């Protein structure tokens, strides 16, 4: 299992990138009662048959790793949601894209810790070779949005160690502001 909710998000974003998505939207909403997030991509999508198998941990399409018999990313997400008083869902259409939703009870004893979002966001934003990733964070009444294209425009190269440090500071300042009000 993944140790934090940020790890779950990174995993799903990585799936989208591997599905050749060029536009990905991650929306995270924290309310008093719920913790929710949604990943929406325009990747290659899945047939209804593949969707049914994708949440089985003992399924992998075998395209990337020929002898692999397991695929744990989505099963981790579904298991965590169910253990924490919520649910997860998967909607997909081949050739159009995929939408993954996660919802859990905010105060549930089995909800994993949220995790270090600053590092997770920096990794997610710099994973895609090209295209757009838009991250929206909503905590109670406050929110912020960051996008890969805007950051690329501001920083230029998103991979150099120096620029990554600036990127992390930028995300950290947005998080700090969000928490101040929350």
């Amino acid at each position, binding site marked *: 299992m993944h140790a934090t909710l940020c790890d779950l998000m*990174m995993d799903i974003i990585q799936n989208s990138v591997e599905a050749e998505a060029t536009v990905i939207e991650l929306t995270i909403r924290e309310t008093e009662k719920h913790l929710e997030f949604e990943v929406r991509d325009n990747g290659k999508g899945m047939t209804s048959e593949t969707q049914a198998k994708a949440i089985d941990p003992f399924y992998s399409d075998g395209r990337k790793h020929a002898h692999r018999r397991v695929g744990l990313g989505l099963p981790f997400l579904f298991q965590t949601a169910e253990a924490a008083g919520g649910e997860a869902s998967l909607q997909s259409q081949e050739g159009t894209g995929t939408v993954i939703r996660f919802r859990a009870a905010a105060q549930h004893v089995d909800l994993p810790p949220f995790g270090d979002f600053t590092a997770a966001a920096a990794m997610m934003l710099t994973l895609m070779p090209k295209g757009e990733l838009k991250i929206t964070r909503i905590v109670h009444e406050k929110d912020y949005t960051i996008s890969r294209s805007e950051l690329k425009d501001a920083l230029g190269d998103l991979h150099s*160690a120096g620029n990554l440090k600036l990127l992390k500071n930028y995300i950290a300042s947005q998080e700090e502001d969000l928490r101040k009000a929350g």
Partner: protein
Amino acid sequence: MAKLTLNDLRKLRDETKKSMSQRSADGKRAEVVIGMGTCGIAAGAKAVFDAFLDEMDKAGIEDVAIKQTGCMGLCFSEPTVEVICDDMPHVVYGNVDDKTARRIVREHLAGKALVSDHIFDKPSTDIIKNTGK
């Protein structure tokens, strides 16, 4: 920290650029690629990413690119980190934690010496020291 705007970020980038000494023509001399598949994430890829950034900052290294990739098929030795460095063999390190990431920065990137006891993919047997591990 005050909330930064994209314009603040642009200014900071320009300041950093000015203070950087000119190195190679394309501005990069090495690439560090961290595995970010389900296996890498579960094994602590995020902490490794943080350790690389922090140690490079401390060592004043800015001309190295840090990238992420999916599962490299080496799940049992995650977190894995591939290091592609000028004038050095191309290697994949396995079981990289915070401490090892910092060693890779100090020894491999700055010191031009392989961190032999964490090499997973051997570039050539004659250039790896036998550490007895």
